[in-house]
């Protein structure tokens, strides 16, 4: 009495007639979902958002200097420094070895150290000491946690306001700028909560450093 038998004939095995749809569906849906869908998305996205679809690149004097959403490494005293990064890269001395290469945007990585891992605690201790020395802080002064911990991607573009303010004195000294105007710049460049409530207040390090350079270009060196 059931419709099943009417369609497939009485007593037909359950797999009867499945070969063609099984084989065709794999190829057909590969074409539709694996090629047509992403290519159509690419076409529309590049029309509507030409900048973001190509990686939100920032150019200065016609040459790309980085992406607005990807962090990059800064070590010079006149720049704000980003969070520690656990990314690695090929050792230029020997291609089979990898060495620490912070902010390698070709291979994202976190440390994946667990909270009781001795290597993590040793790293954090060393980073906290280096941070205090670099920024002229007292030996026991508190250090913002984001300044001594590696981000998940190794490409975190942001630092906390606490971290930026703790670096302001040093950056001002290196640039011959009053630290008050550096701090004002941090406030000006900081990213507010999205839609007034999402995420955390923060500063994009690359944008902040670009603003510093732009400010310096406006005021000829004294």
């Amino acid at each position, binding site marked *: 009495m059931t419709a099943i038998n009417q369609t497939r004939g009485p007593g037909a095995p359950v797999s009867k007639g*499945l070969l063609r749809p099984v084989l065709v*569906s794999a190829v057909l849906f590969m074409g539709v*979902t694996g090629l047509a869908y992403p290519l159509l*998305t690419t076409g529309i996205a590049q029309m509507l958002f030409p900048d973001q679809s190509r990686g939100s690149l920032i150019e200065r004097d016609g040459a790309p200097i980085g992406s607005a959403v990807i962090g990059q490494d800064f070590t010079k005293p006149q720049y704000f420094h980003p969070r520690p990064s656990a990314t690695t890269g090929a050792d230029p001395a020997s291609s089979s070895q990898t060495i620490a290469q912070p902010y390698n*945007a070709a291979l994202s990585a976190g440390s994946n150290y667990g909270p009781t891992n001795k290597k993590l605690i040793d790293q954090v201790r060393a980073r906290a000491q280096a941070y205090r020395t670099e920024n002229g802080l007292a030996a026991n002064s508190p250090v913002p946690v984001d300044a001594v911990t590696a981000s998940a991607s190794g490409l975190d573009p942001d630092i906390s306001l606490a971290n930026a303010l703790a670096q302001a004195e040093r950056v001002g000294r290196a640039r011959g700028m009053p630290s008050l105007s550096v701090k004002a710049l941090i406030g000006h460049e900081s990213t507010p909560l999205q839609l007034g409530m999402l995420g955390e207040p923060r500063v994009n390090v690359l944008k902040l450093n670009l603003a510093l350079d732009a400010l310096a270009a406006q005021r000829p060196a004294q």
Partner: protein
Amino acid sequence: MLNDLVQSALFLVAMTALAVLMGKWLTRVFMRKHHGLPERWTYGLLGIDPAEAMSWKRYGMALVLSNAPMILLGYFLLRIQDWLPFDSLLRAAQTPDLAFNTAASFVTNTNWQSYSGENSLSNFSQMAAITFLMVVSAATGVAACGGFIRGLSRRSTQDIGNYWVDFTRVVYRVLLPVCLLLALVYVWQGIPQTLSSEAVATTLEGVKQHIVMGPVASLESIKHIGTDGGGFFGMNSAHPFENPTPFTNTLHMLSMLLIPAALTYTFGSMLLRRRQGWAFFGAFVVMFIGFLAIVYSAEQHGNPLFTPLGVDQQQSTLQAGGNMEGKELRFGIGQTSLFVAVTTAGTTGSVNAMHDSLTPLGGLVPIAEMMLNNVFGGDGVGFINLITFAILTLFLLGMMIGRTPEFLGKKIEAREMKLVMLAVLAHPLCILAFTALAVSVPGTTDALNNSGPHGFSEVLYAYTSATANNGSAFGGLSTNTPFFNTTIGLAMLFGRFFTLLPMLAVAGALAAKKTTPEGLGTLPTATPLFTGLLVFVVVLVGGLTFFPALALGPIVEQLMLSSSHLF
């Protein structure tokens, strides 16, 4: 703290509202008789009759068989990657065991990755192999759930619907339109969508930075809508190109729970038992909030070993504070904890923080959610798992009050209970047996990134994630070895099909039964009391099964952390 609470509360409200909208839409997708033009073309190409009614056996057979050439096609494309043109970075083909692992992983909707996308896959593979498998595996799960619900809603019939129709409609009417729209929002927020493989920048300090990119947005949207979870990049949704803003993070989380939550509403609509749908939705939400509270408080409290080093982990107006190792600043603790709870609830398995670096109790939450496997659960299968436990709960209650258990007006008898127990037991057996095997083979210690109890947690996490078809990882474990690739690949296949197929059989058996009118002795299942009992049984069975394993990993690590013991 207050803002974190507001974000979480608004998230739950938005999630519920979207569940109703999508639930109504899915009901139409499963119930409407009319076939659209592209669908009729597809049926023509497949050579199938959309009017054919399938028994659960034929439905399940079509499901399993259609997945087979998809695995093979994915495997093949990954193996010949280096012969295909257009990859300016000349990325090598995957090895046989890695390609098996990847194909099995994506076809089972697990998305475990033993590789880092940016140095292992060409843009062609990311689209034709990965994006393709992400869409079809999600469609498989949702279709299975459609057949399952139809089985529960019918009486005295063999017919649970037509697999090809369900599958095609889910792809054309749900996944592709939603993903295309979402991908465009993602690009607006800063996710790249391009066919070029990289940009080379010279940084302000004069260093060359190679920035890898590709068609990320189209992968990212199906990754979450489909509860797939495999990242374009190694660091997944922590990578700024996969998740550039708190807004994309919020959309990711809403996408992950969209279909799993909506299916409770669809169930209520298709069975004309709305209250029952909400009772199940309530069970999901209660467990979810409990887990979220644990992970948030553990992570915001921070790592006590940092305090003596003079590290400030206090939340203030100037910083989010908390345990920031392996986390991204733009998400802070609030959006990260929510993501951890959502991604392991929805069995998506994408991560926006490194779970390996979570505090012990924070890390216990994702493991426990995957062990229970039905706090929302993946597209389709999570709901099926919850029904498994609903039937088990009724059986236990029936034993206590001395009545034959009934569910949705159908008597639950020995055959159904055997199938339910098969589904309930396959999951822990697979997790615990493979974990035991892995920790007893000699090579495993070399693969660990952390020693002591945290190292054990890495292995336990891997097999739990694989069996639950989640795909997230304690990422320190180096799993790209023939042993891990093979055993994790098998765990994914067992975990997928040994819970899905028995439950399709249950649906088939229930569809064939007559409905008996509810009597005085019928236990009502659409009440808060039943929701409470259901949650209790889920937690009790999960706890009894997994507590010894958890005690060896996160629990002992938490005790060691309190006594400042390092490894």
